[in-house]
């Protein structure tokens, strides 16, 4: 059930990012729905489940972005492990934790993207990333906030629904 939820959300986010969002959101600033999911995986899933899922989502994302397969697989894996490694230092009851980690995840993803591009590819991506970093960060945080609101509403509306993390999210973010 849990894996199915992640898979459905991942696929839905991917399709949304490749079709509707580019038409609805101007200037190429599509919120990174899969990145938010990977950060959420880092918060709620142990490495045995979370890491392969993060890598799989990255590989799927690679099919719809850029020209080099495997790039986002690696990036999402690194983002997942980074979230996993640092999550113990934060207060998990803080309602802004997911938003903060999404912001950090965006910065980390961008930095790693530029680093990989400098090392392995054309090395010309950094001006594009720098120009779009702040709007992208805002778009991701806004999307994460919207998702949180939707998830808490779902949890209230369907209390018997046992979607992974929703119980915890409800306890943490509803107050």
């Amino acid at each position, binding site marked *: 059930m849990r894996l199915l939820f992640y898979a459905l959300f991942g696929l839905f986010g991917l399709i949304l990012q490749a079709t509707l969002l580019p038409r609805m959101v101007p200037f190429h600033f599509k919120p990174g729905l899969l990145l938010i999911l990977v950060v959420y995986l880092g918060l709620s899933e142990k490495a045995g489940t979370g890491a392969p899922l993060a890598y799989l989502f990255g590989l799927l994302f690679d*099919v719809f972005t850029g020209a080099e397969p495997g790039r986002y697989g690696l990036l999402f894996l690194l983002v997942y492990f980074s979230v996993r490694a640092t999550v113990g230092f934060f207060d998990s009851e803080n309602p802004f934790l997911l938003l903060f980690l999404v912001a950090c995840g965006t910065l980390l993803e961008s930095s790693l993207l530029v680093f990989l591009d400098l090392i392995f590819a054309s090395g010309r991506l950094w001006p594009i990333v720098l120009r779009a970093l702040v709007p992208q960060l805002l778009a991701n945080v806004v999307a994460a906030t919207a998702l949180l609101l939707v998830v808490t509403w779902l949890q209230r509306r369907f209390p018997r629904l046992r979607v992974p993390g929703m119980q915890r999210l409800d306890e943490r973010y509803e107050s």
Partner: protein
Amino acid sequence: MFDLLQRYRRHILACGLILAALLFYSANLRSSGASTFFERSVLAVTAPLLSGLDAIWSSAADSWTHYLWLIDAAAENDRLLEETRNLKADLVAVQEVSLANERLRRLLDFKEELAMPTLPAQVIGEDASSWFRTVVINKGSEDGIAEGMPVVVAEGAVGRTIRVAARQSRVLLITDASSAVAALVQKNRTRGVCRGEGDSLTLDFALRLKEIEVGDLIVSSGTGGVFPKGLAIGHVEAVSRGDFGLFQSVTVTPTVDFSRLEEVLVLLRLPQVDEAI
């Protein structure tokens, strides 16, 4: 030793996974020319979803327009409103058909000019991230498309196919940071390489002594092996010459409006040399 391994098992596994991902990525860099089975499968599975969502979006946008007209109409005489609304709807429909007709005619004229086999295709999706510039088209290997084929519109060069599934392909736009097109300034034949900068292009390696002015047309030189010679790429937007150095810095605005890309032509020819754009 075993205790050490046992103690740091998670860290070792995490590092191993990251290393494997890095190796997979770097292995793909060397052989990034062909689509993998995984990519072809994902593209094939998601093709109907992409096309369906594309159709739903068009229909929703159409309904929203009609709804707005209804709100405006509330203040008007009922009969006149109905008539006006219908007429407007007809007019918009006719205009839409006319615009599509015009676009397709230009594409057809261009297709005849090209004198090489071409395949019309429709853009059904865009790049899923904000950093790269690719689009998805509704034609694939079943229609004769292969990796590395140039994609154009009447206004000029669009990009090249990089991933091909049975009924769907992904096109790397010339504005992507990893794109480079062998180009020349049409007026004085100064050679250079047009590289993507996200939304604009830069002409690199244009000799400093050559006279390049704002507004000059940049066309493909045909030496890159992907695009045929003479395809419009963009117009010079700014030129900057330092006091020294071998080259000048030229900013180019693409002739193609990539935000309104709908129909494209795929030139059914494989890259002539090993050099990629």
